[in-house]
């Protein structure tokens, strides 16, 4: 059970400023994912929490207790923080058996051998690895090593469990199995978990909260579905979602408490309650519409409110069909490309005339200048 507060954390590697004034609170019992592309500072944050790196500035509290106070150069030892860590490489000691790997930390805590045995077997059981205690790590498959690494980390019921891209070395199928396993573990143990990944699907499916990192800064801290619905800026919008979100250039203008917008998909007016604080208060300005591929539907016959378009390419993927369509902007005469995701197998010919049905409430609108979200999507 653990609440972590990071305050004004700055971390440098040489001249490289990898974490910039990071503020992040992780509530007790959260499954918090630190998400971002490589080099964005997420692993560094994890290592600072673990005590493997020391930030140049900032403070950290765990359950209100001071863990880091850079002002007086105080850094609690990793072992005093009541946490455990699963490394990306698993870091299983190759010269010890599975049993000894898990027992190592317990021996250091000077538990009796009966207790050690109980803890080790309990951890192995939890990870369904009871029979493998006598094996050496190199006698196990990647997935089994992964389970041992997790068993080692949870053996002494840490208050906080840190996971550093634990699934990145597994093949696609194992990865999905382990996702289920980790989620189960979180529910069973009730431990606070901090999970680092660059895989958005892992983040969206497992977490209770996601912290999106970008270039050493925390750019957004939200629940998974909110992150998908309303990425805070163009970078996050582009990063989250597969297939990628469509971006369409447009114009917007705030009139009274309404936001008037225009793009090749048509003109739309939004209420004040949908707007963020980032809206340019006066005059017309350039904006970018963010439209998820599954929010557009294709109709074969024209009807009221549908937008005419032409099929450019058609990709069948079994459970879904990805259709690239071109829309002619009647005002500018330019053609916009939009990717549409249809469930099931649909067949379209290149050049075929089709008609698009959209849900304007679901659109995100971003300011082109600040790249920030100016209009929320609503369900």
């Amino acid at each position, binding site marked *: 059970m653990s609440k972590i507060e990071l305050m004004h954390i700055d971390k440098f590697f040489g001249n490289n400023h990898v974490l910039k004034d990071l503020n992040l609170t992780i509530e007790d019992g959260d499954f918090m994912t630190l998400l971002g592309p490589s080099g964005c500072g997420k692993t560094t944050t994890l290592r600072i929490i673990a005590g493997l790196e020391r930030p140049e500035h900032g403070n950290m509290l765990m359950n209100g207790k001071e863990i880091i106070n850079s002002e007086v150069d105080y850094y609690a030892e990793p072992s005093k923080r009541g946490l455990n860590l699963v*490394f990306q490489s698993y870091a299983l000691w190759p010269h010890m058996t599975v049993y000894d790997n898990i027992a190592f930390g317990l021996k250091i*805590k000077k538990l009796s051998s009966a207790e050690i045995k109980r803890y080790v077997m309990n951890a192995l059981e939890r990870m369904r690895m009871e029979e493998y205690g006598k094996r050496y790590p190199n006698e196990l498959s990647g997935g089994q090593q992964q389970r041992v690494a997790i068993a080692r980390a949870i053996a002494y019921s840490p208050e906080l469990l840190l996971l550093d891209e634990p699934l990145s070395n597994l093949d696609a199928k194992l990865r999905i199995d382990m996702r289920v396993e980790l989620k189960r573990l979180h529910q069973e143990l009730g431990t606070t978990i901090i999970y680092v990944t660059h895989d958005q699907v892992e983040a969206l499916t497992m977490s209770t909260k996601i912290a999106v990192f970008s270039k050493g800064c925390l750019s957004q801290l939200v629940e998974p579905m909110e992150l998908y619905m309303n990425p805070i800026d163009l970078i996050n919008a582009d990063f989250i979602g597969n297939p990628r979100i469509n971006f369409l250039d447009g114009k917007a203008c705030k009139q009274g408490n309404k936001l008037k917008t225009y793009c090749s998909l048509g003109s739309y007016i939004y209420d004040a309650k949908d707007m963020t604080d980032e809206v340019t208060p006066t005059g017309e300005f350039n904006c970018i519409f963010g439209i998820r591929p599954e929010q557009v539907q294709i109709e074969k016959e024209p009807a009221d409110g549908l937008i005419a378009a032409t099929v450019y390419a058609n990709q069948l993927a079994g459970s879904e069909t990805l259709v690239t369509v071109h829309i002619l902007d009647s005002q500018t005469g330019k053609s916009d490309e939009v990717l549409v995701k249809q469930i099931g197998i649909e067949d379209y010919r290149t050049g075929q005339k089709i008609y698009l049905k959209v849900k304007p409430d679901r659109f995100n609108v971003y300011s082109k200048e600040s790249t920030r979200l100016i209009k929320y999507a609503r369900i």
Partner: protein
Amino acid sequence: MRSHKPIWGERLKNQVINIICKPYNMIVFSALGSLICLILVPLLLMVKNTFILSATELRRVQGGQIGDVTLYYWKYLLLSKLSGANFFTPLKNSLFIAFFVTIAAVLLGFFLAWLMVRSDIPGKKWLTLGIIIPYMIPSWCKSMAWLAIFRNGRGGSPGFLAGLGFNIPDWLAYGPIAIILCMVLHYYAFTYIMVSSSLRTVNSELEEMGEIQGADKLYVLRKITMPLVMPAVLSSAIMTFSKAIGTYGVAANLGLRISYYTLATKMHDFIGSGSVTVGYCMSILLIFMASGTIFANQIFIGSRKSYETIGGKGNQYSVISLGKVKYPIMLLMGGFLIVAMLIPLFILVMETFQIHTGGGYGLHNLTLYNWIGKLENAKDTVNYPGIFNNNAFIKAVWNTVKLTVIGSTITALCGQLLGYICSRGRGTWYGSLVEQLIFIPYLMPAVAFAAIYLSMFSKSYGPIPSLYGTFTIILLATVVKHFPFASRSGTANMLQIGRSLEEAATIAGASFWKQITRIVIPLAKNGFVSGFLLVFISIAKELDLIILFMTPQNNTLSYLAFQYSKEVMPQMSDAISVVVLFFVMLIYFVTNKLTGADIGKSWG
């Protein structure tokens, strides 16, 4: 939560705790301190000493006093009437030798490497053995073998050919040609090892692409393969040059009899029986030249090194068919190896059983006296017992074993420790400082390095007594000189132990010492053993490094062999060489069997 003490006080307290409670910091600190004291300070002191007037030359500088700043030594070496004989002729000789050794050794090494890696020459296994084993033979042993064959009547002990009635002229028996050939047969191994490993990394797809474009094999070799291995060739050329310019043993053994001096032998002369400080000046110049070439290498190759990483997938390299000529080439190579390596060794061994060298192998001329004879059974003019009854030999065996065992243990341990610092400190100031300090002994020819230590430790400093003539100074010089090699293998060893293995232990609550004893040492064990044995071999072979420190009390086998050779007692020196050879080979095969260590990782 926050204490009421002033912030700076608490900050200071925590900082002190952070440093004191991290044994790692203390280790880095003491390692840096020792490296500075053992490498940087001696070097700077020696440079300083060459500008200070000492008692020996007091009479030569008018109105001078001991301790005055003077340019006398440098002027004497570079600008006096004797400069020609003392410096410029040896310099010319050294450059001449190094130049031809480099050309011939690189060509030979490249050719052999290409044949072994890229051609379909038959009998590769045996040929590889024939190529790599000679590298284990110390270079000074090769010069002994040369003498066993080519020695002429000078001094009364004819060699093999002279015994057959050939009149061997001095220019063939001794001097530059002999020196160059002996060194070539030693240093080709640098090129062989570097180029063959580089050739192995050239992805055959690169060459196959050339062939698909329509180039024939020779064109592909010239335009694609050669440029790709060029950095390795250049590196080995420069390494060979820098080694050849500073080699003492071969040059002394084959040059001194006809007063043919190189920089290394002249410098030794000065330090042994002349103006010591002038000798130090020469060693500075020698270091300057040897390290200059290596720095040139780094500047030269630096940007092109990237070639070497074009590894691609595994060891996929195509083999080029030699067609019908492959058997003639194999025979030629086999013949060459036999003539250049096997026969000299055979003659060297046989000479130890001869009563009169050059007297043929008839039974009447064979004896075990040189090995086990007692002085009372001696015939003719022989006035020494066989080596196993020779106290000097027994003492040298003991000294050699003591030096190699203690020296390699300390060196290998330090190497692992320094390797630990280098690998864990990558990218930090102390990591790179340690790495650079360790590299310095590598830049120095062994004789010059010994000169530095002699200069530093022949005086007493406070509590440290003068170490001149002690075992300690030999040990110290041996250990430090082998630091680069030992710590390189230590670094490689430590890099294999992922940092996260230690971090996982930190998180489990293990102290630094527990991490070291429970995680690092068990995992580093194998690498340590192979590193240890390779250093062991290298120390057992050593002559150049220790020759300046020798006193009758602390002779080693290599020095004794060299000494007997100088006194024209060939049977004795050969017998000792054979013992050293046997010792080295034995250790190598044990190493190879135990750890699979590769001699290619050893240094000459």
